[in-house]
Each structure stands twice: as structure tokens, then as C-alpha cells.
């Protein structure tokens, strides 16, 4: 029994909540009375049509749909043409963590704002190109923290799982008896205590 949740974005998923907090540049197409507080560069009471702001994704989802969308979302920079070219050139060399913490998960939402479907293509391309490299890393790295620096959160998760599985597999091949281990939470609790004492 572990704390891990199923991957697919579910309502309670912490990762999904954090990914939907990422911001998207938007232009307001109507006046929004009383919510001038959202705009840090003016003190007016109302938000005027034409204001350009970066809004968190969860807010954009509510405002950009419906019969009269209040905002027009744009693509965030890292999903634009320039960055897409970089990924097309060599996806493995890119520091995806710097692009966006939740590059894939945020991307799969951003995809909906892109009519030409370029974003969906680049997400798939990036993932398939990097996946081989990722599995290679997971199979051969043992506890080298530097190796995962360039991975985004989804890749880090996959790396961790694959790496643990590999280590367990190796242990089992060497000695098929599975040792009983201290429970993970008890271990954590111990470590914490040790820090407190020191």
C-alpha cells in the first residue's frame, strides 16, 4: 500500500493541482467589473477589455469557454515555434525542467488552445525521443542526483519507479529471498528524529 496515486489526472492529484497553477498569457476581451485587483499595474476597480495578464490555468479554463469567452488565451513561450524548433533539433539535450516543471502535463492542457495541433505533436515527439534515454538512465544510474536534473516532473516520477524496480530486480536475482524491511514511513520518521537530535 503506497501513497502514490494513479497517474491520470484525478481530482485529488497534487501534481495535477500544481500543474494547473501554471500561468498562461491572456488578453481580456470584455470588461470585468470589480476585479481590478487581479491587475497589479493599475489601481482601477474594474478590469478593462484589452488588459493583458498571465492567469493561472484553472482560471483560464473557466473564462475562455462558453458562448462569450471573457479572455483569449495565447500559447506560453515554451510551447511556441522557437522552442518547438529546439525540441525538434535534439529533444534529449534539452533541460526540460527549466522549460516548465510540468512540461507534459501543463502541455496537455495548453494543447487545447492551439488550433493547429503543433503542441500535441511536439509533446509526443519530445516524449518518445526522450523516453529511450530515460529508460537507459534508470537502468544504469544508481543514486546519482545530477542525472535527473534535466527531467521534468513526470519524467522524474517514471525515473524513480523504474530505478527502484531495477534495484529490486537486481537484489532478487542475487538472492531470491526478500528481506523484511522497515516500513518506509517509520524509516522517514527515524531520519527526521536524528536530524532533530543533532
Amino acid at each position, binding site marked *: 500500500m503506497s*501513497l502514490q496515486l494513479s497517474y491520470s489526472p484525478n481530482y485529488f492529484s497534487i501534481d495535477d493541482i500544481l500543474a494547473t497553477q501554471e500561468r498562461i498569457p491572456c488578453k481580456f476581451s470584455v470588461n470585468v467589473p470589480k476585479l481590478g485587483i487581479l491587475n*497589479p499595474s493599475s489601481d482601477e476597480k474594474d478590469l478593462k477589455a484589452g488588459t493583458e*495578464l498571465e492567469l493561472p490555468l484553472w482560471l483560464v479554463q*473557466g473564462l475562455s469557454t462558453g458562448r462569450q469567452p471573457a479572455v483569449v488565451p495565447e500559447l506560453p513561450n515554451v510551447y511556441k515555434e522557437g522552442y518547438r524548433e529546439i525540441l525538434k533539433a535534439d529533444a534529449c539535450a534539452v533541460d526540460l525542467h527549466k522549460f516548465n516543471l510540468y512540461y507534459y502535463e501543463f502541455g496537455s492542457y495548453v494543447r487545447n488552445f492551439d488550433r493547429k495541433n503543433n503542441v500535441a505533436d511536439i509533446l509526443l515527439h519530445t516524449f518518445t525521443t526522450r523516453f529511450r534515454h530515460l529508460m537507459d538512465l534508470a537502468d544504469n544510474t544508481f543514486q546519482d542526483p545530477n542525472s535527473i536534473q534535466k527531467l521534468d516532473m513526470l519524467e522524474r516520477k517514471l525515473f524513480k519507479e523504474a530505478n527502484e524496480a531495477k534495484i529490486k530486480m537486481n537484489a532478487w536475482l542475487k538472492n531470491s529471498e526478500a528481506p523484511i*524491511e522497515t516500513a518506509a514511513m*517509520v524509516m522517514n520518521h527515524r531520519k527526521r528524529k536524528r536530524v532533530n537530535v543533532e
Partner: protein
Amino acid sequence: MALRYSNCRNVWRKALELIKELDRCTGTLPPYNSDLVSEVNNEIKHLIESNLEDARLDEENRSSGDVSLLPTIICRHSAIARNFRCLLAYHYNRLRCIRTMRWEFGGILPPDIKENLSQLELEWFSKYSNSLAQYMRSVGEEGINLTVNLKPPKSVHIEVRCLVDYGKYEMNNGTIVFLKKNTRHFLPRLECEELIRQGVFEHVVS
């Protein structure tokens, strides 16, 4: 590249702080943040009240052709839904963690962990503990302890090393073992498993 878009101001972010707190402490449980939870509750209440008022205003304005308040209402509504989601996720993920604790620490939690739980969470823990015990008693003729033999046993006795000064320990057959730090013992697997899970023993595999 010129910065065309300025960030929107950080409003409605309190609920996210709760989620971030959980995200920072994977594998442990941070103290229950009752202050922030009630602040978020108040924020939700406040948003709902403002929306009610504006919905009424909008209804009146419609005939006179004034500016529509609808975008404002939708905006606030998204914030309400977001706050709800964060609050629910906060509590749900904490409960998952507490449930795991029942299996890893056993029926009695260490006092410093207990401190981090809210009153309601403590109640939930004891209820969960009870129903688990009740279920384990009801299976088979004499009941079955589901928290042992999590991994398939290969031998009746195993070798263990003691990691802490535990003191006297009475085994099921009545013999008393004196458990001192760094001593090795050859004991029945059944007796040791729980102590290994709780970090008193280390399983020595040659």
C-alpha cells in the same frame, strides 16, 4: 524578448499553500494547518456572498442595459471551485497518509506524529483501526493477521540484528529474550516481522 504580459496579482492563493505543504513533505505528514484551512473556508464564504449579491445586481441591470457582471461571477466561481478542490485534496491526501501509517506503525502512533493530526483525523484513525481489527478477527475460524507475512516466507526462523535497546521481550511460547543494541538473534519469523517493520530489528540476509 519584451515582457508583454504582467503576472496577475496573487489573490486566491491560500488554498494552494496547503497543497504545497503536502507536496514538500512526501513520506511524512506535516502538522494539520487549521489556521489556513479556516482562512480558506472564510474566503470561500466571502466569494459565495459576493457572487450572490452580484447575481442579483446583474438581474436588475439587465433591463437597463448596463455592463454585464457575468464575467466577474464566472471568475469568482472558478476561484470557489479551485478552493474546494484544494481543500478536498488536502484532506484526502492526508487521510491516505494516515491509512498507510496504520499499516506501517501499527495501531499505536508515536506521540510526535499524533501531534500533527487534527482531532477529527485522530478519530478517523481509531475508527479505521477498529474496523481493520474487526475484519481481521472475522476472517477464518480464529481470524487472520493481515499485517504479517507481507512477503512470502522461505524459512521458519530468520536471523535479525537488534538496532535499539529494546529491553525484555516475551515471545509467544513464554521465553523471554533480552534485546540489546547490536546483538544478533535467530528467532521465529512470525515473532520478528512486526518488530522489523517498526525498525527495532534489521533482517540479516547472508
